[in-house]
């Protein structure tokens, strides 16, 4: 057998799961879809002493509209459900654009929306998407609840603000204002593979065509998804010109990222990709916002 031995708990309610996590402390780990955790365990890179399996808790899997026109997505909602949900496509077209890039159909049938965010892979798409869509994350532990902004959730590669006895229960995506456009651009060696670099943008225009908001997040070029300050600073308050977008791309590529070199790409190549992908992503997002 590939993984090391571990204890296994299969709670059927959230309360029961929190009770287990509280008892286990650092010895416990949440098992959501397991499409990243189980490979890591098969390689024995991850060696949790006990797993608390959330798959038997139906109350954690849902996509619900919120009062303000946004959506609340339960942490155990399968990626393929998010990918094919008309509710999601109507409110957040960025999500069905991103989802087909996440591994393969068989993996998305099992992998979960909240699990991917909590896993915090710096090359993962959903942590970055949670930031660019300004998500609020509901974190539970036995007897208490707290909310964390997605942009404050990620601390480093595979590290989040979650304490061992806590779990991510829900992802709330606030409604997007009218005249908002979004775009996801990535370069990877093969479909479904990790990106060498990727950029997600969400921009809003006013009636006169001036930019009122520009959120842009870059993936695989640092320890965590990087929210661009330059996009906001340079674009907001003016009409989005190709020159302004090029300036954002230049600053993002040269100052805002900290790419590494690995078997797939050099740091320099990743900077080049960011320069190109930022331009493509912002240009497309503004075109969509103007429609």
């Amino acid at each position, binding site marked *: *057998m590939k993984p090391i031995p*571990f204890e*296994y708990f299969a709670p059927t309610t959230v309360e029961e799961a929190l009770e287990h996590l509280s008892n286990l402390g650092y010895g416990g780990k949440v098992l959501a879809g*397991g499409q990243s955790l189980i490979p890591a365990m*098969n390689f024995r890179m991850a060696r949790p002493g006990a797993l608390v399996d959330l798959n038997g808790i139906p109350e954690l899997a849902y996509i619900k509209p919120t009062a303000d026109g946004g959506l609340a997505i339960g942490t155990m909602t399968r990626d393929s459900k998010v990918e094919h949900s008309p509710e999601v496509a109507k409110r957040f077209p960025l999500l069905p654009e991103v989802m087909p890039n996440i591994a393969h159909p*068989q*993996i998305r*049938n099992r992998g979960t929306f909240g699990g991917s965010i909590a896993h915090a892979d710096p090359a993962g798409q959903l942590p970055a998407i949670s930031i660019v869509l300004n998500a609020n994350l509901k974190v539970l532990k036995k007897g208490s609840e707290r909310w964390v902004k997605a942009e404050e959730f990620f601390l480093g590669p595979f590290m989040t603000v979650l304490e061992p006895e806590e779990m991510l229960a829900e992802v709330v995506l606030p409604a997007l204002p009218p005249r908002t456009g979004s775009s996801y651009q990535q370069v990877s060696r093969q479909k479904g593979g990790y990106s060498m670099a990727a950029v997600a943008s969400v921009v809003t225009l006013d009636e006169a065509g001036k930019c009122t908001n520009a959120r842009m997040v870059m993936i695989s070029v640092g320890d965590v998804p990087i929210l661009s300050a330059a996009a906001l600073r340079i674009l907001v308050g003016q009409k989005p010109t190709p020159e302004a977008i090029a300036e954002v791309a230049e600053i993002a590529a040269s100052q805002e990222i900290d790419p590494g070199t690995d078997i797939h790409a050099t740091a320099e190549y990743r900077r080049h990709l960011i320069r190109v992908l930022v331009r493509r992503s912002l240009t497309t997002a503004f075109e969509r916002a103007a429609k």
Partner: protein
Amino acid sequence: MTTHTIKVKVNGVEYVREVEPRLLLSDFLRHDLGLTGTHVGCEHGICGACTILFDGEPMRSCLIFAVQANGHEVTTVEALGTPEKMHPLQEAFQEKHALQCGYCTPGFLMTLKPFLETHPNPTDEEIREAIDGNLCRCTGYEHIIEAVKLAAQKMATRS
């Protein structure tokens, strides 16, 4: 290490077994139940050889623990057809030479069965998308795509 009793329906047959939590579903099917049609390739979710249907949906059996199958239904390639009465997909794979060594074939078949049920007349693009999680090191995929189109025709004629 504590073992757990699981009750799982595989290819319509209910099994009750004692398993260690770390036993992968792929190994459970092959070693405990003797259903060696499910193949094991990379064991980290890349190759797709171990694809089975879990409650009707294609998933990687190497990325699910057997203990998690408790109360669920699993379908393996053994349930697809028999040598006497093959599934249209199996016939089409044979006729179009969509396999050579055959190692990846069970995974392709279990991915494609539900796909053809929801896409009775698929385009080449849809077929390529559907099989992008299955690696074949022999065929170069063209024969597989031809076979899927033929299988779709066969299924349309029969229904």
